[in-house]
């Protein structure tokens, strides 16, 4: 069990470092297994420094920078052991428009190169525009959800009632 955990740590760390650079367009980051003698009790520490900034603890990063760092870690874990489905529920909420673009680039890359199917829940117009198809959930009757398939022109109309 120890070897498996150490091996998975190495792979996740490698993916994480590459993804961080992709998400931020530069900089560097790494993971460390900390504390306990026994890796099964250890913790996972994250070190990150966006391009041009000093290496620092996670709390000094901004809200959006922390979200991008955490997403790089989640996708690193995903690439280590790819799942048949990946669901992302409003993970783009704290991101500015440029970072939403980089996030979508990454998801599209992963969707194109694997069998994995992606469900992305979002309020960002930019993300909506990058999907292959769009479903809208409405509550035309209060408290009762209804799923409708939307073509992207219909998305404008949906947002209008949204």
């Amino acid at each position: 069990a120890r070897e498996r955990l150490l091996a998975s740590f190495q792979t996740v760390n490698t993916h994480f470092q590459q993804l961080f650079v992709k998400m931020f367009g530069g900089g560097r980051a790494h993971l460390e297994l900390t504390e306990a003698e026994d890796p099964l009790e250890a913790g996972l520490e994250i070190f990150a420094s966006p391009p041009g900034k000093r290496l620092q603890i996670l709390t000094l990063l901004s809200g959006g920078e922390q979200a991008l760092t955490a997403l790089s870690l989640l996708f690193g874990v995903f690439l280590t052991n790819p799942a048949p489905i990946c669901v992302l529920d409003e993970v783009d909420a704290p991101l500015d428009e440029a970072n939403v673009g980089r996030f979508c680039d990454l998801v599209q890359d992963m969707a194109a190169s694997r069998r994995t199917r992606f469900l992305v829940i979002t309020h960002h117009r930019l993300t909506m525009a990058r999907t292959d198809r769009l479903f809208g959930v409405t509550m035309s009757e209060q408290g009762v959800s209804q799923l409708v398939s939307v073509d992207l022109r219909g998305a404008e109309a949906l947002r209008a009632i949204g």
Partner: protein
Amino acid sequence: LDFVKLRLVGFKSFVENTELVIEPGMTGVVGPNGCGKSNLVEALRWVMGETSAKRMRGDGMDDVIFGGTSRRPARNLAEVTLSLDNSSRTAPAGFNDNNDLEITRRIERGAGSEYRINGKTVRARDVQLLFADNASGANSPALVSQGQVGALIRAKPQDRRQLLEEAA
């Protein structure tokens, strides 16, 4: 295993029969606040064998059953069915001959849950193992719920270790 379709009835705000077809690539889900988008994610986690009511944002597991609105009475039954394409033949022994798998979870108010694979009643354990063997399941790190990215940042280093264990 490929995830093909999710069907809900009586689950949270989806009181009427609802079908979400899941195709390859990126599928977007949009809609106003409170309309039921995150409920869909919970339906997917629930049918794969979720045991914690807290992760379903409720006090008890019965909270996933449609609780009624000002114009409709509450229901006593909720059911979610997940359709899978098994042409890659990765299902457990008893079911691996089938091309298509239908995993169903059904809950009755006050009476607990029941699981079925292609119509045959199975244990929760069987469903959980089916998904664990296919890098998925209720605890899959690839199911990122609303607010989970923030929770990962706030988490203590020991609490983040679970991510590595799932990846192993």
